[in-house]
């Protein structure tokens, strides 16, 4: 099934409390080698036909305007996947 994958991460210099909580839990479990954890989102946009370049452009626009909030997040990737 054709899909476009949008990957979003919290901005680099932003506090990620979720990531921090997960890192702490990993440390408690013995994984002290992990220095930090950051948690983002992977969004799949499914199509029931072939994906065009126009679709990809549209997805990039939606990723920037709606799927992410550019104050607190970065769109890391928008890619086609079969």
């Amino acid at each position, binding site marked *: 099934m054709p899909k476009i994958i949008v990957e979003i991460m919290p901005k680099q210099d*932003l*506090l990620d*409390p*979720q990531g921090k*909580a997960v890192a702490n839990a990993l440390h408690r479990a013995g994984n002290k080698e992990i220095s930090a954890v950051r948690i983002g989102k992977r969004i799949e946009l499914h199509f029931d036909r072939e994906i065009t370049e126009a679709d990809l452009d549209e997805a990039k626009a939606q990723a920037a305007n*709606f*799927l992410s*909030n550019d*104050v*607190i997040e970065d769109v890391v990737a928008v890619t086609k996947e079969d």
Partner: protein
Amino acid sequence: MKIGVITFPGTLDDRDAQRAIRLAGGTPVPLWHADQDLKKVDAVVLPGGFSYGDYLRCGAIAAQAPATKEVIKLAGQGLPVLGICNGFQVLVESHLLPGGLIRNEHQHFVCRDQKLRVENNTTAWTNLFEKDEEILIPLKNGEGGYIAEPETLKMLEGENRIAFRYLETNPNGSMNDIAGLTNERGNVVGLMPHPEHAVEPGFGPDTPVAMRSGVDGLRFFASVLQQVVNA
């Protein structure tokens, strides 16, 4: 004076906002998120809750609603808009107010009576307060930490756009203890605490005077009625 209160799927404090408007002397008008028609109201409240289950980001989907789009347009023309908690999140997602609101550092939902300082008493929603007046307003949320770029913070401080600041405790790690903001024009105000929960004696926060007697929230709604009358 007609004040609209928008209900999104998942909105929780709309009935409380309607009551607050009524107690202040206005006429609350329930508005549905899918309707662009705002029924010629004189002001709008975006109430608290978990619109769309906080899916994607708090307030993100509500910011796309037809009613919200109309509010954004009219706010640009001076319509007074108050965003409470989730409503504040909608205002930030709509870019009517700058910055972002993220999850509390301590990860837990917290419901407490919060002391605030009213730092800007010239907005549509705060003109009945004294400058730097200390008020007590209930706070209840898990994602309310305010963040912004350093330049944005500098601008907000410099232009006196911090409407409310947390006193005594910063419950959610908000930068600069920011509890609420206003826009340049002073018609759009957003804050995390809930003034609509401090409007009726017997049902508000405890004060040294008596149990549940705090009604500092009422002046938010009375202020805008004043504003509309004078407009």
